């Protein structure tokens, strides 16, 4: 059974603010279903004796001391921005969220 259907893709596209045509939704639903099924095979390999993990390397407490390091200038920070104004990133107004 495919874990991803067309409605799921439409939902995710809406969350990600990506406009998708009906055709694209159909195609993506099929492709994602195959990908998810492929990843699922991992869970078949892991038995009940394998605990869930969020990280492949058994490390903990990797910390940084609270010491100030490097920063960008505003010019550097904005160098890759499509648009800027008054040293700030300029973005389209998003009306339905706050």
């Amino acid at each position, binding site marked *: 059974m495919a874990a991803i259907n067309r409605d799921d893709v439409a*939902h995710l596209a*809406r*969350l*990600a*603010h990506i406009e998708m045509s009906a055709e694209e939704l159909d195609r993506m639903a099929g492709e994602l279903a195959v990908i998810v099924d492929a990843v699922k095979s991992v869970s078949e390999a892991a038995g009940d004796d394998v605990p869930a993990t*969020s*990280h492949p*390397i058994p*490390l*903990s*407490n*990797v*910390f*940084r*001391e*609270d*010491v*100030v*390091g*490097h*920063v*960008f*200038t*505003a010019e550097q*920070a*904005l160098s890759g921005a499509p648009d800027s*104004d*008054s*040293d*700030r*990133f*300029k*973005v*389209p*107004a*998003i*009306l*339905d*969220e*706050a």
Partner: protein
Amino acid sequence: MSTDATLSFEEAMEKYDPVLGFEVHVELNTKTKMFSSAPNVFGDQPNTNVNEVDLGMPGVLPVLNKTAVESSIKIGLALNCKIAEACRFARKNYFYPDTPKNFQTSQYDEPIAYDGYLDIELSDGTVFRVEIERAHMEEDAGKLTHLGGSAGRIQGADYSLVDYNRAGVPLVEIVTKPIEGAGSRAPELAKAYVAAVREIVKNLGVSDAKMERGNVRCDANVSLRPHGRERFGIRSETKNVNSLRAVEHAVRYEIQRHAAVLDSGEPVIQETRHWHEDTRTTTSGRAKSDADDYRYFPEPDLVPVVASRAWVEELRATLPEPPAARRKRLQSDWGYSDLEFRDVVNAGVMDEIEETIAAGATASVARKWWMGEIVGRAKNADVDPGQLGVEPATIVELNKMVEAGKINNKMASEVLDGVLAGEGTPAEIVEKRGLAVVSDDGPLLEAIDAALAAQPDVADKIRGGKVQAIGAIVGGVMKATRGQADAGRVRELILEKLGVNA
């Protein structure tokens, strides 16, 4: 903007039982950000406290700030929480320009601290226990300024400008369990709870705790249910409630609004509400919808935090005196009565009085100024007393001038107004306004003669032993000297003149 119907608070309370919940975000005052070594500084030029990690550039890796973790554990301990043996971070995915990564690094199923409580003392001394669900670590978002259209409001804005200096600033989010049983004291409890959290983090030294700067921010959840019903009503979540007074007002307003909705037979809509300080009302933000599907998953770029019991105990040993104990100590140090001290706490000027005493004032002088002069002015200006901008040194200077007999209390109050209006230091204002106590007895005696002549019946009364009638004569003299006389000296001279021993 349409205005929502409300019931009076009293009627709302007769019909319904409020349930509260709070999410308080505390910005930590670490030198650097949660996951990057960029400085954590307020008020700098836009986008100058950022590096590649804060801007979410491809291929960068976050590294956790150890001091931020320690501060978080301290907050957990001060809130009587359990500290997780091990916990991890999670990605909260959403698309909005305040985070350039398209996710906020937060904690989801494994908060660093959980299952705590805080005992909150209300204004009459009643203690109310608020249960803490969790306190988790996360990062702050960038700051958006909406421009064009109706200025400052997101509705109708043409575009937004983003400053990422705040992006990545360490936050601890403290979440309460549902708070039941507060009844009509719900608004007061709301204010007292946020004040207590602010006091704790300030006392721990882990946050600057300035609400006006957004160091402590509160989202207030309110729902109502008919008395006697166990199931909770539908809640609203009011955001942007960023002063103690606003927390109290917002909870009161939402109770009144919910009550009107329920009375009309409509269901309350589960939604975000925005608080507006100017009108003291809330307006609808957005309804909870599938946009709240944050698709949390464990953060693969960070490894778990393991808090060994030895580490936790080491941090516990560094905790300062808890605020409740501190209050007891200060009251005894200052020699205030229970009532005097409670008034000071309720007026929110305990810290200010402590600072004023540290600056050189006596406990009674500090109380006289804060309670007698400043609290009233703050109320008129509709701000918290601490936000009025009165420096402890100003009070010490004013008091010195009064004690030296250079100015009287009335003039000192006038000078304080001048200081608050930005006219300069107390000494400069005294000079500029030509304020000085008339200490030469000559003009005083003339004014006294005139006042006695104007009110011969009063003069007779005083001669006859009714010394308390002297106020009318003193008043006349003060009026004639335009308040520049030393009232104590005037009194002495009048008694001398009339040959009365008092």
